[in-house]
């Protein structure tokens, strides 16, 4: 997911790729409010997953952001069925 996230941030949000490394904080990676907005919209458009800007911004690092998206994307692909037990 990290590579896919980096691709979105560079091509859709217009960020330079260099600072986008897994261990970087979002601020250090250049992920500003505009980038978070673009990312939220791109995730919905491309992957069908809705993660709002607050949730994306709360990720402490780029790696954590990629993990969040991966987790939610897998959830979107295979929604859990409510237990009837």
């Amino acid at each position: 997911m990290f590579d896919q996230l980096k691709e979105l941030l560079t091509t859709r949000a217009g960020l330079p790729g260099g600072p986008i490394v897994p261990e970087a904080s979002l601020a250090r990676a250049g992920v500003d409010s505009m980038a978070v907005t673009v990312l939220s919209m791109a995730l919905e458009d491309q992957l069908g997953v809705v993660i709002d800007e607050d949730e994306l911004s709360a990720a402490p690092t780029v790696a954590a952001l990629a993990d969040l998206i991966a987790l939610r994307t897998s959830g979107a692909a295979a929604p859990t069925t409510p237990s009837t037990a």
Partner: protein
Amino acid sequence: MDTVEADERLVPFSLRDMTYACRVLTTRRRYSTEPLVLIGGALQDMYSWPRLERRLTAHTTLVLMDLPGTGNAGDLDAGAGFEILAEAAGHAIERLGLGRVNILGASYGAPIAYRLTQSRPDLVARLLLAGATPRVGPRLTAVVRQGLELVGSHSRPADEPARRDYARNVVDVLVNSATRHEVAQGAAVARLLERQLLRTSQSAALRYAACHERLLDTDLYPAGGIAGVPALVFTGEHDCASSPEENSAVAATISDCAFALIRDADHMAHLEREAEYADLVTRFLRDQPVQGLPYCRYPQAKDPGCPACRS
């Protein structure tokens, strides 16, 4: 992208009863142009330009100001005009000891930069105005009045439907609703602005209102014009907060002023086409040609501009 990590220095100022501050961003590079002082819009503060910071500090020392009444600065008397703000900006530039500077005034910052250049041309190497209009037009005036009503009659925030309606109206002027689909990142910028407006605290809303009220029912650019200072006026081609014609009218008051419209952008060109915005600014600061750029168009004086702006 040519970016570098910049060192940041926060500098406080006081002038009479006003307190305010600026950020000075610089790198170890050797710059070939004077420092650039950026005075932004009424909804912005000195932290509102992260993308341009990254791009511009590769070419110049950048000074971002929270003038009185904006950002973290102290309040400004509601009756104080743009002359006071221009004086405060000039005071800060002198205190910084930077010598002559380039000044970029964007939107609400444009009348301040213009006045400073009129009153202290000795301080200004080059003047850049983005999103300038001789007077605020009827559409933006109506939105500003809606905002003033919202904050003026309430000691606490107005109800959500009213705030949402106001936020949409602001966004529809700043990110031209009629051409949003033609504007790079138009939908994202609109969404970002609407979220920010809906989260504005009552105290911040009161400060925004005070800034906006200063824009109404007045000629924003004093008579007398400007001569002898290289100048560039520009905005997005779809700007309807300050239309191409209005920007052109401001440019016409400055001798030998360059004028350009950034394609596929509007009043929020700095977010929509940040790379092109930064390139245009940098070229002008380096005395490179700003004509013939593929991302700009250069209308004649009678350019029809954006049809939606006239409605």
